[in-house]
């Protein structure tokens, strides 16, 4: 008995859906019987042996130690084959991640999302591998009959390509998702799948023309030039072709690379897949786009990933990634650097420091000379709009020309939920006022040490209900000192 919610159980669900999809496709919605459909498929498979014979039989006697001409010819077929698999894999991934539209259901259930996505991606890989083997069978058959069992290596290569194509399809889809957002990803992924598929059809034609024109025969001068331009026989690009030719070492390497890609996809990428629909409404800003261009954008520490099965986490990860890449803070709002504050103030204006808590907002103001921070009474938080009103009234009274907002980073410099809440507050505030906001890393003020000791493990999410603005004064004083040293 399979335990509900387990990996095996989820796998069975995936395979049931895939089988029924496939079955209704081949039986044209039950208008044909399954037996008829299978007979047709077998007949097509047998018929495919003829073109396969025409294309590859001449390689059957090639030795395991290959010449370059054979490697080039076989590799061209392999590239075409891979493009077809990739197109199918993209189609499959898009279908299973978007078209089914069951993410609301499964993500609102207690099943861990990473388990579901791992299963879904692995099931896709399995299905594509089956397809890969079926496609390769006529060729492998022909070669095995004509040249002996070493050609059975082709099955292993087919599986490796099926698995690898699925992994690449997942990576492309996720990359598109981060670049374009969920809605457009679905369309673009389907377009890419179609284009790659069309490339396959055209490639077949090209190969046919080349063969019949004996362009690839070494006796032709152009062919020799082409061969000369190709990498050396020892080059790894020939590994799949060598594996097909029966080289066992090459086969092991090819399969290992395929599985490695899959391992990356399942173990590393799937957590990022979770926010597919969830993140639908999130804004993808310019920095996020740039960050996404970094294909190595690794999103996960699986253990860390539980509640954060959603967009905020993803975008924060990407944002901090962007920060590392560009050495600057990605901006989501009109933001000013601490050093630029002095220049931005009009005569007579002062700087205000804010310490954002869940229940209160601590407020401090500077003097006109920007040297000393003085605490002001805290603002009790109620609703954002009311808070903002109270705050803006106070800033107006004090003639503040800039805001320094304490950013509570974790001790390792990463941004936790409190920092997120702070940034969100700043974004909201930016819609109500033109006063520029600078963030101040609280770890640079004494306040950080004091606070982190108390709060680190006790209640990360909730800030203590502070009753005075001392922390705000600490924050502002730190910033004022920086402004002073920058100006001198």
């Amino acid at each position: 008995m399979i335990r509900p919610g387990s990996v095996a159980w989820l796998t069975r669900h995936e395979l049931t859906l895939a089988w029924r999809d496939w079955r209704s496709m081949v039986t044209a919605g039950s208008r044909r019987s399954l037996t008829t459909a299978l007979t047709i498929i077998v007949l097509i498979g047998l018929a495919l042996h003829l073109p396969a014979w025409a294309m590859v039989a001449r390689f059957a006697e090639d030795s395991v130690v290959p010449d370059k001409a054979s490697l080039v010819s076989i590799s061209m077929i392999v590239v075409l084959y891979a493009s077809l698999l990739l197109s199918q894999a993209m189609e499959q991934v898009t279908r299973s991640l978007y078209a089914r539209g069951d993410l609301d259901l499964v993500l609102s259930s207690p099943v861990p999302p990473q388990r579901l996505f791992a299963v879904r991606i692995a099931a896709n890989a399995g299905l594509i591998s089956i397809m890969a083997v079926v496609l390769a069978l006529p060729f492998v058959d022909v070669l095995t009959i004509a040249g002996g069992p070493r050609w059975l290596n082709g099955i292993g290569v087919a599986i490796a390509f099926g698995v690898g194509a699925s992994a690449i399809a997942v990576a492309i889809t996720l990359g598109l998702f981060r670049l374009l957002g969920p809605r457009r990803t679905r369309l673009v992924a389907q377009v890419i799948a179609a284009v790659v598929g069309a490339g396959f059809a055209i490639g077949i034609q090209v190969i046919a023309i080349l063969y019949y024109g004996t362009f690839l025969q070494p006796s032709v001068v152009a062919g020799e030039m082409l061969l000369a331009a190709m990498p050396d026989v020892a080059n790894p690009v020939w590994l799949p072709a060598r594996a097909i030719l029966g080289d066992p070492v090459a086969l092991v390497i090819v399969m290992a690379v395929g599985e490695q890609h899959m391992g990356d996809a399942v173990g590393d990428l799937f957590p990022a897949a979770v926010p597919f629909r969830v993140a639908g409404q999130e804004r993808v800003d310019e920095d996020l786009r740039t960050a996404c261009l970094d294909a190595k954008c690794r999103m996960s520490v699986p253990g860390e990933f539980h509640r954060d099965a959603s967009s905020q986490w993803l975008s924060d990860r990407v944002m901090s990634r962007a920060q590392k890449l560009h050495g600057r803070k990605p901006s989501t709002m009109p933001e000013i650097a601490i050093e630029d504050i002095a220049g931005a103030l009009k005569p007579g204006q002062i700087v205000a420091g804010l310490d954002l808590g869940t229940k209160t907002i601590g407020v401090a103001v500077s003097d006109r000379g920007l040297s000393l921070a003085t605490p002001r009474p805290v603002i009790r938080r109620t609703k954002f709009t009311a808070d903002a009103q109270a705050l803006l009234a106070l800033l107006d009274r004090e003639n503040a020309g800039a805001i320094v907002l304490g950013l509570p980073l974790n001790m390792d410099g990463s941004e936790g939920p409190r920092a997120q809440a702070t940034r969100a507050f700043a974004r909201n505030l930016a819609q109500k006022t033109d006063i520029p906001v600078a963030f101040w890393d609280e770890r640079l003020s004494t306040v950080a040490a004091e606070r982190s000791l108390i709060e680190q493990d006790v209640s990360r999410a909730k800030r203590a209900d502070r009753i005075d603005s001392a922390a705000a004064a600490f924050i502002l004083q730190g910033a004022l000192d920086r402004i002073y040293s920058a100006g001198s």
Partner: protein
Amino acid sequence: MADSAQPAALAIADLCKTFERPAVDGLDLTVRAGEFYALLGPNGAGKTTTLRMVVGLLNPDAGAISVFGVDALADPVAAKRMMAWVSDEPMIYDKLTPREYLEFVAGLWGVEAGVAEASANELIDWLGLGPHADERCEGFSRGMRQKVALAGALVHDPKLIILDEPLTGLDAGTARQVKDVLQARVHAGGTVIMTTHILEVAERMAERIGVLANGRLIAEGTLAELSLRAGRGGSLEDVFLTLVAGDAAA
């Protein structure tokens, strides 16, 4: 138990979520256990965003959510175990039969196979799905799909059922059935929260009504209390329009 008072089915404090503009803006909301609660509001008031945060499909920017005393942000899995979510465009698998769908949903919530089968049968009878229980869902009408999705939400016996616009697009007969099922659920001790922009539905079904506008709760109470608050008698529609207009003017 030291605490004799049952915790609220849902307690939301200072919840905020901003997309291009604030969708939910400092929302406080409490739904008592065993209550039928309707969230009413114009389009874009933040109803769906709020509920998606409650069921763990969106992360709030700030605020706290607790479900029967469980912190849904700190322990989402424990909270999800007690909840069911029916979105306004419910997804059911075309290639599964209603019976298989119910079995799958029950499995997601870890219900034992025997128990799941019994409760699936009961729900199929109750919702009049019997004749179609073993047909694939691909040919089903919207009403049928909504019923299957609703059965899916009930099959794991959640303490809190959250529905987004459950009656939109249903014919009168089906809407009636859905209402009856939900009301029976409340009588049996369950808690139901639904959003709607259909005033009559809120008026007729819910014990308490919360009016949401611009991401905040602008009024809450029974129909009588809301009428009093709006300073005029009459239908919920009058009351609602007065409240929303008052909020826009403020």
